C-alpha cells in the first residue's frame, strides 16, 4: 500500500476534491440536524409508519431481486443470448433512467388503464398503483440491476468449469446450480442483496409517480422526507440522518464482509 504522503500530487488533489464533493453535502445535512430532538422526531407516528412501510418494501424488493435476479444473472452469464449487448443494456437501463420516468413507464404499463394493467384490472381485479404491492414493484424495478450486475460479474469471473464438472458428476445442471454455483458466489449474492436493498430503501421518484403517497400503505421514508420538507424541514433532516446512518451502516458492513479482496 502506498503511503498517503508518497501519493503523486496530481492524483492526490483531485481525489481529495472528489471526497470533498461527496462529504461536504453530508456534513451540511448533519449540521442542520436537530440533534437534541432527533429521537422525539423519529418516534413520531408518521415517521414510524413510514419506517414500517419502508422496511416492508425494501426487504420485499430485495427478496424479489433474489428470486428473479439470480436466475437472470445466471442466464446473462452462461447462456449465449441473441443481441447480448442489447439485453445487458436493457437490464442496466433502470440504473440510468430518471426514477420519475421509470414510475411513469410503470404506470403506462401496469396502471389501471395501462398496457398490461387494464387486463389485470378487468380479469383479476388487481390494481397495482396506490398499493403497497405497487410500491414494492417500483422499488424492485430500480433495484434489480444492482443485484443482477453484481451477481453476473461474479459468475463471469468464476467461469463455468466448476459448474460444468459438477453438472456432469452430479444429477444435472439444476443441482449443480444449487449445490455448487450458488454457494461459491454467496459473497456476491450477499453484496447484491445489500446494494439492491439500499437502493430500494432510498427509492423515491418511481414510487411517488407509480404508487402515490399514503401513510401506512405507500408512503416510505423518502416520501415522508419529501413531504416533511414542505412543512417541517427539521423533521425531514432527522429522517434523512436516519436513512444516512442505516445506508452507511449497510455499506460499511458490506465493505468489511464482501467487497474486500
Amino acid at each position, binding site marked *: 500500500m502506498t503511503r498517503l504522503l508518497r501519493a503523486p500530487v496530481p492524483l492526490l488533489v483531485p481525489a481529495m476534491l472528489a471526497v470533498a464533493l461527496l462529504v461536504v453535502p453530508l456534513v451540511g445535512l448533519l449540521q442542520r440536524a436537530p440533534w437534541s430532538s432527533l429521537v422525539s422526531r423519529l418516534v413520531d407516528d408518521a415517521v414510524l409508519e413510514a419506517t414500517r412501510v419502508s422496511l416492508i418494501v425494501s426487504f420485499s424488493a430485495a427478496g424479489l431481486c433474489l428470486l428473479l435476479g439470480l436466475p437472470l444473472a445466471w442466464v446473462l452469464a452462461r447462456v449465449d443470448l441473441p443481441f447480448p449487448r442489447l439485453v445487458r443494456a436493457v437490464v442496466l437501463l433502470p440504473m440510468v433512467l430518471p426514477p420519475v420516468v421509470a414510475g411513469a413507464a410503470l404506470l403506462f404499463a401496469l396502471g389501471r388503464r395501462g398496457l398490461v394493467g387494464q387486463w389485470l384490472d378487468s380479469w383479476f381485479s388487481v390494481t397495482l398503483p396506490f398499493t403497497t404491492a405497487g410500491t414494492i414493484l417500483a422499488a424492485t424495478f430500480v433495484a434489480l440491476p444492482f443485484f443482477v450486475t453484481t451477481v453476473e460479474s461474479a459468475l463471469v469471473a468464476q467461469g463455468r468449469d466448476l459448474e460444468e464438472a459438477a453438472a456432469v458428476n452430479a444429477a444435472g445442471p439444476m443441482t449443480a446450480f444449487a449445490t455448487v454455483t450458488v454457494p461459491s458466489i454467496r459473497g456476491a449474492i450477499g453484496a447484491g442483496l445489500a446494494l439492491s436493498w439500499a437502493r430500494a430503501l432510498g427509492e423515491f421518484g418511481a414510487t411517488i409517480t407509480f404508487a402515490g*403517497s399514503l401513510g401506512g400503505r405507500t408512503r416510505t421514508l423518502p416520501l415522508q422526507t419529501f*413531504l*416533511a420538507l414542505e412543512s417541517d424541514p427539521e423533521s425531514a433532516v432527522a429522517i434523512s440522518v436516519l436513512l444516512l446512518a442505516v445506508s452507511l451502516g449497510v455499506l460499511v458492513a458490506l465493505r468489511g464482509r464482501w467487497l474486500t479482496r
Partner: protein
Amino acid sequence: MARAMHQGHKGRQARKTHSIMPLIALIWALGACSSDDGETLIFAASSLAAATDSIDAALQAEGSASPPEWVLAGSSRLIAQVRDGARPDVIVAADTAQLDEILGLGYVVVDEPRIANRLVLAVADGNPAQINSLDDLGLDAPLIGLCAPEVPCGATALRVAGEFGVTLRPDTDEPNVRALAHKLANGELDAGLVYATDALSLGLQTISDARLDGADGCANPAVTSYGIAALASPSEVGEPHPATPVDRYLPLEPLQQAGFELGLC
C-alpha cells in the same frame, strides 16, 4: 467484481473517453448560453401551470422580448427554495400566509392582481366510479386522490371537508396538484379535489356539488387566494404597498381565461 467486468476492455474504454470529450464541451457551451440574464424568473404554484402558456403569449403580444422563465412546484417547496437562496423576480404562492416567511429576504407583497382559485370535484373520464357528490370521497371502493395536507391544495381540501362535515378517504396524497390532476386525467384515480384551473386545462370531467360551487366568494372554504411577491428594488423595501408592476409579468386576461377568479379575496 468491477475489475472482472472491465478486464479485456481496456482499449475500448480508452476510445470511449475520447468520444465523450466533444459531448462535455457541448454541454458546457449550452450551459453558458442558458445562463444569459434579462429573463424574468417566475416561481409559481403548480396550479398556475394552466395559465403559463397564455401568459407567455399575451406578454409576447405586448412586445416582450422573451417569455418569462417559469418554475412550477408546490408553493411550500418554492418558498423553501427562496429561503435557501433562490431569487426569482416574482413568486406566486397558492397561500398568502406562506409569503410572510420570505418578506425579510428582499421581497414585497403585491396587492394587485388578486387572483383566486377554487377546488372542484374532478373524476376520471366517464366517471367510472359513479361519483355524485363530495360525500362519495368517503367511500372505500373508488380510488380517491387528494393533495398532501402539507401543500395548499391539500390544506384547502381538508378545510372543505371540515367545514362541510365530509369524510375523506384518500388512496394517495399527491405532492402537488399537477401530479394529482394528471393521475385523474389518465384514469388511474377515480376522483379527487383539484383546482378549477387544472380541471379546465386538462379537460377533466367535473361533478358539481352545490357546497363547492356556491358563489359566496372568499367565504367558501373551497376558494383559496394566491399571494404574489416581487423582488423589491432597494427603495421599495419596507414600503407597505409598493407599486411593483406585476401585471407586467402576470397579465390578467390569460389568468381569467385559464379559470382563475380575479379580484376576489
